[in-house]
């Protein structure tokens, strides 16, 4: 028995849970739950009203069901909507005061919240379950006027910014999961980059789902004021659990005139075991708005985890000359399912977008690229380039490409191409001939296949992601 458990842990590197007493909200999705969340976070009345509005709207909505990966019905009344480490009530002032168990967890995850991180120049706003526990590098960011804090803190300290931008990209009456998030979101990050500031370091948040049966409802809001620049990293690991856990986060980006936001994600949540049991449902809404001219938003994602990944990081290119980019690698193995892609909505003149998507499926997995390129009549000289390539390993898995192309402007230019193939025997043979074993060879070839996307990641992430690509496909060949 014990041996079995140890074996299980070996399979999933980050599959461990830390015993921390949790404060949980009452079970179920009711007005009471929302009031509880709002109260425990000490929120002002307007915020509670905002949540209630979303909740009312939610009652009239239906869960979407057009996606490719189907999942058993989620009982929303059987979920806990809030859980926080006990230490959150009395927030620690410095790292020494942080629960040593937490620190240990982060160390296991390879998130050095200490000196090492400072040397690498990354400020970490670590989210353990639903509440931000420690925020570092505040001083350095304060110097240039960058606000980087948890969204609960921002609601208290910067209500004018939150009021203005929260829900401006993902309205509270958007689709089901986005609305659910608006009603019950617990915490997340808030970033504001003031005019003309180039954020001196890469901002990063690590998410980690901990308590069992807890849906995580993060809310992230990033605002880049005129001519500013920020690069934001998000990385995820989750402990091993048998129940399916729902994760419905909302991420909103707003880029004002001349601003640039780069948002990178490495997602490595628990994908379920080899028979497809358990695993995280990753139903995330990510949307960026290029609000004013010459702005740019770039999404990069490496999706290797989760039982079901269902998300479309999108760009609304409203300002003239704005640019949207989407780089994605989605790797599915065993019984994982992914339905991911992007939407590029061209509204302004001379807007440009670029989509590079690489899907890899192995085992019994299904990998779908679903994307929309929509060019509106007023988007003169809009340009889009889309490339989506799929790689299949074995004939039990599937790779699908479903692009929607809508062009209503005669000056625009859209080009789309997609290919599906397998790793060629010749390439494998060549690598093996040079002394690599078959797994190393596959990892090498796949990394080459994904190179265009991996290049877009910030340095620290790129190394991690490259390793992940190899690990995710372990055991899929031979």
């Amino acid at each position: 028995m014990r041996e079995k458990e140890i074996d299980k842990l070996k399979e999933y590197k980050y599959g461990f849970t830390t015993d921390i007493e949790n404060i949980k909200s009452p079970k179920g999705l009711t007005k009471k739950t929302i009031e509880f969340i709002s109260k425990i976070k000490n929120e002002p009345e307007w915020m509670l009203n905002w949540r209630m509005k979303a909740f009312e709207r939610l009652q009239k909505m239906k869960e979407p069901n057009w996606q490719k990966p189907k999942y058993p019905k989620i009982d929303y009344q059987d979920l806990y909507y809030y859980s926080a480490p006990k230490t959150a009530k009395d927030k620690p002032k410095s790292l020494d005061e942080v629960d040593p168990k937490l620190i240990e967890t982060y160390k296991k995850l390879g998130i050095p919240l200490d000196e090492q991180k400072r040397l690498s120049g990354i400020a970490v706003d670590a989210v353990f379950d639903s509440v931000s526990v420690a925020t570092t590098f505040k001083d350095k960011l304060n110097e240039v006027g960058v606000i980087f804090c948890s969204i609960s803190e921002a609601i208290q300290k910067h209500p004018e910014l939150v009021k203005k931008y929260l829900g401006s990209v993902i309205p509270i009456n958007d689709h089901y999961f986005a609305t659910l998030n608006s009603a019950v979101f617990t915490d997340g990050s808030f970033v504001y980059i003031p005019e003309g500031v180039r954020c001196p370091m890469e901002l990063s948040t690590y998410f980690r789902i901990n308590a069992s049966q807890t849906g995580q409802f993060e809310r992230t809001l990033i605002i880049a004021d005129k001519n500013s620049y920020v690069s934001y990293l998000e990385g995820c690991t989750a402990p091993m659990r048998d129940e399916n856990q729902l994760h419905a986060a909302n991420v909103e980006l707003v880029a004002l005139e001349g601003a640039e936001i780069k948002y990178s994600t490495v997602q490595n949540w628990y994908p379920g075991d080899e028979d497809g049991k358990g695993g995280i449902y990753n139903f995330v809404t990510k949307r960026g708005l290029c609000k004013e001219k010459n702005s740019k938003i770039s999404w990069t994602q490496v999706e290797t985890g989760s039982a079901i990944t269902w998300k479309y990081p999108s760009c609304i290119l409203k300002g003239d000359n704005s640019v949207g980019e989407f780089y994605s690698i989605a790797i599915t193995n065993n019984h994982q399912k992914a339905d991911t892609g992007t939407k590029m909505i061209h509204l302004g003149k001379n807007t440009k977008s670029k989509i590079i998507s690489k899907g890899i499926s192995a085992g019994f997995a299904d990998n779908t690229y679903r994307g929309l390129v929509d060019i509106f009549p007023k988007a003169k000289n809009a340009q889009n380039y889309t490339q989506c390539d799929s790689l299949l390993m074995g004939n039990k898995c599937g790779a699908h490409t479903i692009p929607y192309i809508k062009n209503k402007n005669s000056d625009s230019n859209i080009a789309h191409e997609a290919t599906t193939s397998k790793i060629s025997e010749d390439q494998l043979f060549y690598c093996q001939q040079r002394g690599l074993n078959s797994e190393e060879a596959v990892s090498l070839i796949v990394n080459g296949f994904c190179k265009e996307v991996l290049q877009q990641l910030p340095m620290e992430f790129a190394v991690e992601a490259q390793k992940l690509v190899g690990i995710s496909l372990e055991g899929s060949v031979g």
Partner: protein
Amino acid sequence: MKNNNINLEKFTSVLDLNKEQVKTRSQSLLDFNKKGFPSKKIEDWKFNDLNNIISSKIPNLKFFNSLIIKKKDKYEIIKSISKDLLENNYIISSNGIIIDVALNYEDKKKFEIVREPNFLNTNLNSSLDSLNRALYLDYIKLVIKENYKFSKPIIYINYTSSDIESTVLNQRFDIVMEKNSCMSILDFNLNKSNKNFYNINNKFLLHEGSVLKNYKIDINENSNLFYSKTEIDLYKNSMSENFILSKGSQFSKNEIECNLKENYSSAFVNGIVALDGLKQHEIKTKINHSSEHTKSYQLVKCSLKDQSKATYQGKIYVDSVAQKTNGYQLSKAILLNDGTEFNGKPELEIYADDVKCSHGSSSGNLDENKIFYLMTRGVSKNQAKKILIDGFFLEVIEKVTDSGVKEIIKDLMKIK
């Protein structure tokens, strides 16, 4: 849209139906009444909401029109058809009823014409298929015998007369190609009528080694709404070539579904969509690769003027057993002025790993440099545009493998 006012009685008396037929027809009708015309809530009709189009274009749609059975003078119709076309085998249908079958260039023992409605099995289940099965006016099935090759193509003329208006016309047409047979058929729409909804169902069965070339031509200006669905089953080594010229009707949707059921079968779908005014046309294809070494190729080109709208939905499905599949899909659109719209949904659904599948789609305006080049050679701007568009389409026309038909198409499109 309410369709509850359809009654079968008129059909029963006019078409002289027996009890069995009435029964199957009324079942289909029940299904149609339940579903109604497809609206954009159905994924396949996302880009063109037929329910909406019908209610706005044909407000007083009739499901039965007594004028359709009025005897038509065959020679009147023939007179309106160009001589070039009639120098082939031909079948003429008038308002959905077949009035003449003249396969004069062929050996009579080598084919069979079936008029009793013994439909080939299909897996059609959309509301329009039900409508077709409930209210079809006429049926013809051609069976081409083993090892026979048609010496000339068949021209299938779909004629509608000017007195027909606001009517639903349903028709069904099947072809069975026996082993190693070969035939070309050109569907030619000749519309004098106005504002009708034409619903055609076809089923082609291609046995081992057979070749069927089907060309659908809709070039005459008319205000009808046109829907055609073709289902093609392909067995070992068979080949199906399809070409669609979509130009004349107010609304048109051509659906082609190819089931590549056995090894080494192949399917080709090529299309030209040339629109102006307020026209909305769509080509939708679905290629099911369900066996090894199958091949499919699709090429669709569109040019759009004024306020027109073109849609291409293409899907390649590869089953997990269909290794060594080769699937290719390309759609290109030229938007000539503002107000036009092109929608594309080139889809791949693949479950086998040893395959080569790709698709490409592009849309945009004509290249200004090319226009400039031609103008420097003394060609006017409009002529330059025409030359470029003709060249753009010529690539598709050149894919037509029947040389006789290719000339007919070139003549019709006035491309030299």
